[in-house]
């Protein structure tokens, strides 16, 4: 699990940490029942304020992604993979939306946008059956 914090991208640091935990759960780098690093360990590793990490963990608990295990720390809940997959989809949808808005502002036509999208998509490495994420069918 490699976490990274960027102070320039306009996203609050606690949010970046929460997102990265979710992404780690979504792509199985963090599995159900596994512990996240302690607040102190995570804060030191990222060189960020411990309160910021604590806040990220609190939000993840509120969303049902993490649960405190008595005396040992915070663990990934059984529901977390589903929540995180949905979240990841939503996050990608948001990003796509902002890119599309920018394309529209620069007065690209629908066909041009589709062409760009298709050419980018086809240049991605193909997904093999095993590495395909188990997306929930909602």
């Amino acid at each position, binding site marked *: 699990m490699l976490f990274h914090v960027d*102070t320039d991208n306009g996203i609050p640091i606690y949010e970046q940490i929460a997102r990265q935990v979710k992404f780690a759960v979504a792509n199985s780098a963090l599995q159900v029942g596994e512990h996240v690093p302690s*607040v102190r360990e995570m804060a030191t590793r990222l*060189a960020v*304020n*411990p*309160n910021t990490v604590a806040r990220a963990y609190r939000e993840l608990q509120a969303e049902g992604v993490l649960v405190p295990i008595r005396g040992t720390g915070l663990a990934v809940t059984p529901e977390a993979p589903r929540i995180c997959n949905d979240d990841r989809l939503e996050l990608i949808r948001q990003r796509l939306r902002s890119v599309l808005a920018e394309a529209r502002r620069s007065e690209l036509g629908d066909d041009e946008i589709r062409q760009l999208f298709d050419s980018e998509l086809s240049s991605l490495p193909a997904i093999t059956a095993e590495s395909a994420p188990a997306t929930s069918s909602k």
Partner: protein
Amino acid sequence: MRPVVHLDNVTKRYPNVTALENVSLEIPPGVVCALLGANGAGKTTAIRILLGLEQVDSGTASVLGIDSSTGGLEIRSRVGYVAERPTLYDWMTVEEIGWFAAGFYPLGYAETYNRYIRRFGLDARKRIRELSKGMRAKVALSLSLAHSPDLLILDEPTSGLDALVRREFLESMVDVAAEGRSVLLSSHQVAEVERVADMVAILLGGKLVCVERLEELKRTTREVVVTLPDATTPPPSMPGQVLAHVPFAHEHVWMVRDLDEARLAEVCRDAGPYTVRSPGLEDILLALLREYRSPAGAARSRLDERVESTPVTPPQ
């Protein structure tokens, strides 16, 4: 809870310059507070007053409840302090200077010091004069941490140090904060401050223009850019508290607190296209500095309004 650092209406004048003017600041326990501002803004003076190394002309200063004007010695024995250019006896070895300092502190100091020395990968037998700038800074930091102070004061600790040493300093600061102890940090490394600070205090020309939780400052501040159609169109008046306004040809940039975005849309209908974004700490600081240094900004003296230090809730 009693604040660990308290400045109340502090003014300090030197023959040619007013270093601090009516500065009031309270830092609650367990908080990492960053002191920001240009060179010569009064940051070091404020720290030296707190430590009892300088006397105030008016107002009061205290640290851990001890009056700085009379209790400097006790304060200095209870806080950890790393000066920008730490003075160390350079004929001593790394280990000797630890033993030497241990004489001023309760038992256990030398052991803790040696633990830091090992953690920072310093050679205990080397003489201080043989150390690089980064290694000297690590010795100074180890000396300031070895008595587990309730408050760590760092005056531009990482200026001129390489990225790895800076990171190690940051990690030590985080470690201190994780134990619920307080840190007062003066720094020019805004990106670092943004990572570790709970609250920021911004000094401009000896005046405190902003004391606030960093998260709150960022949450409530917006950068507005308006492109006016021509030079004759007057810039719109911003619906919100303007921290800074920097015109650049037809483009005007504002840093605004508590922006009313609905009203902004109205006032900009005649003015021209505009964008709103959430600025980082560096953007906010630069805008304040530019505003302060521009003649127009000084004339408006918008920053002269005294900013009350808002109470900051300590972390759980």
